[in-house]
């Protein structure tokens, strides 16, 4: 069984087992672009219950406060073990006492440190016979929460991972076709890069979106590209791991942890028992302010919609604009592939609302065309005052859109 396809290399679960069994050291602070080595190191740390700090391959250690650069890529001894098979590895990893440190991606500001246990990292993992034989497109940064979620889901079921993180549209499609990918979990931005629809890929049976708000236009396109796929959403954060199951186009707070949530001024508050630990967390009566603004669909059943991120609201002349709402409106216009809305500092209004727009090939739209459509749907202050047409939109390390 193949464990990982990365670039043109293939690693079997037997290769992984061999690599683990010959290891006498691991790296507590490991920075690498090699995904296989990264996973071997992760499993080594977990299996020996050693602490591990996950560093992005492209990070400059000086970007992180309090990180001693001299520790990066310095090996430490571990007690060698001899695993008989992968089932044994999985069961040892599940009982790990390791503290795993992650950093928030920080679409704004300094990355923050969050410490997790195997329990919070694998809360959403499902195992069993019906999860066997899946082939996953690995579309997230492996050092971040979403990447870990997909890794553990695949690893604990001994599924195959096909690395497509930060790869081109052509490469992604080629891998889906060649490897017969069945499952994709990625940000809406990743799926937008796959547009426009050219042909259907029938091997994909499950498509998961996470990380940002998505829109109907995108769902419709995904259904065309992956006609056999069931689409669902996931809510996960660096702070809490995976929390909610999607129910239709809503999320549902599971009955068992219902008392661990509160909603104050539309903001979702999460009880500290569900979180990793971090010095940067601030609690009000043991509840953490998630910064996610939600809207109840059915409060008694715990059903809700996400509206936006609290700190993402842009103040334009005293009006608060939710950039996600405007992005959805722009993306619904025919000929638009992707849009990003942001505020530009301005001496008159505080911020002027701006949008970068990527068009579908062969479409021509002007700034005025877009403004006219938006004016018929949105209040005046929500219509971007400067619309730039760009080739692509820059992304953060986790593949989310970077707001300027």
């Amino acid at each position, binding site marked *: 069984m193949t464990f990982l396809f990365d670039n043109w290399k293939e690693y079997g679960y037997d290769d992984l087992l061999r690599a683990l069994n010959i290891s006498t050291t691991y790296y507590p602070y490991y920075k690498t672009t090699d995904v296989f080595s990264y996973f071997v190191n992760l499993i080594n740390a977990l299996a020996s219950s050693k602490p591990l700090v996950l560093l992005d391959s492209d990070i400059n250690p000086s970007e992180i406060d309090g990180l001693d650069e001299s520790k990066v890529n310095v090996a430490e001894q571990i007690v060698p073990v001899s695993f008989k098979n992968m089932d044994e590895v999985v069961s040892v990893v599940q009982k790990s006492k390791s503290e795993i440190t992650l950093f928030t991606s920080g679409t704004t500001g300094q990355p923050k440190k969050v410490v997790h246990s195997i329990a919070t990292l694998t809360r959403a993992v499902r195992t069993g016979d019906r999860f066997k034989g899946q082939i996953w497109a690995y579309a997230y940064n492996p050092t971040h929460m979403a990447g870990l979620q997909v890794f553990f889901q695949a690893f604990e079921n001994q599924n195959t991972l096909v690395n497509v993180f930060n790869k081109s549209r052509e490469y992604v499609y080629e891998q889906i076709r060649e490897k017969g990918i069945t499952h994709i979990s990625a940000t809406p931005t990743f799926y937008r890069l796959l547009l426009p629809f050219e042909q259907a890929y029938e091997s994909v049976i499950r498509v998961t979106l996470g990380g940002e708000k998505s829109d109907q236009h995108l769902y419709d396109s995904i259904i065309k590209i992956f006609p056999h796929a069931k689409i669902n959403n996931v809510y996960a954060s660096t702070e809490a791991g995976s929390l909610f199951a999607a129910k239709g186009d809503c999320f549902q707070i599971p009955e068992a942890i219902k008392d661990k949530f509160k909603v104050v001024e539309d903001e979702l508050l999460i009880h500290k028992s569900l979180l990793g630990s971090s010095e940067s967390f601030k609690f009000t009566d043991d509840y953490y302010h998630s910064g996610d603004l939600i809207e109840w669909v059915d409060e008694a059943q715990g059903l809700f919609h996400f509206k936006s991120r609290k700190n993402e609201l842009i103040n*334009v002349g005293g009006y608060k604009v939710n950039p996600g709402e405007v992005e959805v409106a722009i993306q619904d216009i025919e000929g638009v592939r992707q849009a990003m809305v942001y505020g530009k500092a*301005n*001496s*008159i*209004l505080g911020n*002027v609302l701006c949008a970068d727009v990527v068009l579908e090939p062969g479409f021509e739209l002007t700034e*005025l065309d877009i403004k006219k459509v938006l004016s018929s749907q949105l209040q005046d*202050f929500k219509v971007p*005052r*400067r619309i730039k047409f760009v080739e692509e939109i820059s992304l953060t390390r986790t593949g989310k859109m970077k707001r300027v």
Partner: protein
Amino acid sequence: MNTKVLEIINGIRAAKGLSPFDTVNADTRLREDLGFTSFDLAELTVKIEDEFDIDIFEDGLVNTVGEIFTKLEK
């Protein structure tokens, strides 16, 4: 320079469903004659800044097209 500023002004007016001007002169007032709101003025500054790299409102209010030209000529 003048044609570029006129083009920006007419672009803002077009989005509001107002007819374009053939010319503007130094005495043309931004609010009264062009019908610009503070949102329109903000758009004007951003677009002039894109084009000329100058924030015309940086040190206080500008009332006429002539005052814009003066700032751009500096």
